[in-house]
């Protein structure tokens, strides 16, 4: 469990906290449907790079915090994040071989899975959530992934 030093974890946890902050930061109304799901992107990256340390457990905790921050049903984001990270860790060896374009496409699929779970739970629970713009974050998330990747590689090199 500890192939990485403690000091490595601090920047990683900080990046997850920063992602949480970006998810609750105030944004102009028109941009809100396109806000990338920062926490998911961050956790996909870290579970891809350090699957022994960041896996379903961290995803679940981050998801619960996200549930409270966004005022959704408790467990909704937790379940969706957990599933996405599970798939990522499960196939991390293949995913690491992917070129950037293909990885972005995979991220697109993972984000779509994430939004689908949220959408589906909303539907079952009877929470109204209309409109195709629900899927805006999937597109922006996949588009921003290559940039985010550069940032994270920077964090990682700084950390070790």
């Amino acid at each position, binding site marked *: 469990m500890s192939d990485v030093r403690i000091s490595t974890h601090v920047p990683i946890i900080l990046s997850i*906290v920063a992602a*949480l*902050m970006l*998810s*609750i*930061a*105030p*944004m102009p*109304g028109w941009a*809100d*449907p396109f*806000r990338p799901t920062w926490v998911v992107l961050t956790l996909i990256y870290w579970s891809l790079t350090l*699957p*022994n340390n960041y*896996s*379903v*457990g961290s995803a*679940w905790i981050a*998801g*619960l*915090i996200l*549930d*409270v*921050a*966004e*005022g*959704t*049903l*408790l*467990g*909704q984001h*937790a*379940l969706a994040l*957990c*599933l996405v990270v*599970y*798939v990522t*860790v*499960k196939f991390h*060896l293949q995913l690491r071989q992917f070129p950037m374009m293909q990885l972005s496409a995979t991220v697109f699929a993972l984000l779509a899975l994430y939004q689908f779970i949220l959408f589906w*739970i909303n539907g079952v*629970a009877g*929470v*109204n*959530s*209309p*409109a195709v*713009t*629900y899927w805006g974050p999937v597109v922006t998330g996949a588009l921003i992934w290559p940039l985010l990747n550069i940032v994270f590689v920077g964090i990682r090199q700084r950390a070790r």
Partner: protein
Amino acid sequence: MAAPNSNSQFGTSFSPALGFRFLLLASLSILLLIIDHRDNHLDAVRKAIGATVYPLRIVVDAPVSAWRWANETTASRNQLQLENSRLSTERLLTKARLQRYAALEAENARLREMLEATARVREQVRVAEIMSVSSDPFRHVLVIDKGTHDNVFDGQAVIDADGVVGQIIEAGVLSSQAMLISDPGHDLPVEVNRNGLRTIARGTGEFDRLDLPFLPNNADIEPGDLLVTSGRGRAFPAGYPVAIVESVTRIPQEPFAAVTATPAAALDQVREVMLIWASTPDKTEVEPAAESGDVVEEPGQAATADGEPDSSEGETHE
């Protein structure tokens, strides 16, 4: 979901544990979802996690409040003078109106006493600032900077200067979440001010539109009618303006008319909101079941603790 235990193609040591952990956490999430959806037994959990989110909100909100502060401090003298004079005229007008209102209220109380009806509950009001707006565009939820520490409670009415904004859905310790009346999941019992016709105003997900889905075709309602809270249903006090009827479309085949209304409060522009506490009325006898009598709270020290002069009762009804 893939079969969680087919890990043989990877020689990594964590795989079987991973599938197990995932199943465990997933079922835990589903359990949480069911419990949370059924009833509110998880309030304590929510509050505990909410306490960790609070500092994040402060940090996130810092640039916005810094910008507002900078704007205020660098406002020109001229601007300030203009605003000052505008505010003092406004205050004069409001005071004049309030005088008349006080007399009316006394008269109303006297008449009600003669009729042996229950005295209307007086309300106390306190200003709260908005910390952030829900990041989910389909949930119209605000976070305000008052919590149970300031006697905020679940279901409390939230208004602004023009009308009803929403109600508290989750009172944290130092901050609370309020659902706007425009949220698709929000229903508010209202009545038409003109004739007392009671109905339900439902949020649509748009800030500038409410639906009144349960009015029959022959209902006496027309564009321009003011809708006020009826005080039925939960803790909402009666008589606050909610919306103005915008259009009434009567469709002969359908059982209900299609009625839309525009909220009186500018829901997408609110900066400060007011919280309402029903305080003990000056007349001592109050039927607890009537009006908004079920709001039991000690607002006395809440409104006066900071010496805020903004505790007033009621609103201007047109």
